[in-house]
C-alpha cells in the first residue's frame, strides 16, 4: 500500500498535501481526492513542497481540478511549489499556469 494524500479542511478551503512521487500509480487516487475536494469545498490549495516527480496524468488531474473549481466560482492555488514540481510543469509547457496558480 502506497502513501495516501493528506487533506486539511478549514471553513470552505481544502488543502491537499501532494505526495513526493505523483506517478501513474498515484493518479487514480489523486483524481478521487480532487473530485471529493472540488465537490465539497469552495477553495482548493495544493501544497507542492514535497513533490519530486509528477506524471502527465497527474498534471492532467490538476488542470481539470483547477478548471472545475474556477468554473464553480472558487479559487485554486498551488503553494510551496518545489523546484522539481515547477520544472516539471515548465517542461510540459505550463509556465503560464505556474504564475497563475501561485497567486492566491
Amino acid at each position: 500500500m502506497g502513501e495516501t494524500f493528506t487533506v486539511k479542511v478549514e471553513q470552505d478551503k481544502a488543502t491537499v498535501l501532494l505526495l513526493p512521487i505523483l506517478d501513474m500509480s498515484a493518479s487514480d487516487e489523486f483524481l478521487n481526492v480532487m473530485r471529493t475536494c472540488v465537490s465539497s469545498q469552495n477553495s482548493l490549495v495544493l501544497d507542492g513542497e514535497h513533490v519530486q516527480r509528477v506524471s502527465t496524468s497527474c498534471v492532467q488531474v490538476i488542470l481539470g481540478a483547477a478548471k472545475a473549481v474556477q468554473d464553480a466560482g472558487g479559487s485554486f492555488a498551488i503553494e510551496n511549489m518545489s523546484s522539481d514540481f515547477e520544472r516539471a510543469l515548465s517542461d510540459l509547457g505550463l509556465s503560464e499556469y505556474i504564475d497563475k496558480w501561485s497567486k492566491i
Partner: protein
Amino acid sequence: MGLRVLAVDDSKTMRDMVGFTLRNAGHDVLEAGDGQDALEKLGDDCVDLIITDVNMPRMDGIQLIKELRANVTHKTTPILVLTTESDSSKKNEGRAAGATGWIVKPFSPEKLLQVVAKVCP
C-alpha cells in the same frame, strides 16, 4: 447538440479527464482501454469523433487509426491523437495513418474543447 465521442486510452485517469471535460460540455463519451477494445466496442457503430492515445497495450493508437481508416464506416470520422511532447515523432506517423489532428498532453480542458469544436464544427 452533443457529439458522440469515443475516448481511447490505457490510463483510466486520462479517460476520466477527457470524459469529464466532454460530458460537462454536453457530449456523450464512450471509453475504451486500448485499440483492440476500441474496435470491439465500435464495430460498425458510428461516432462523431475518436480521441486516442498513442502508446497502449495490445493495439496502439497508430494501428487503431489504420484499422479504422480501412473500415468504410469510420473512413471519414475525425480522429484526434493524444501525444506527449516526447511522442512528437508520432505526430507524422499518426497523420500518415489518417489522423485528423492531435492534442499534446497534458492539455487544458479549454484546449480540448477548442480542438473538438475545430474538427467537429
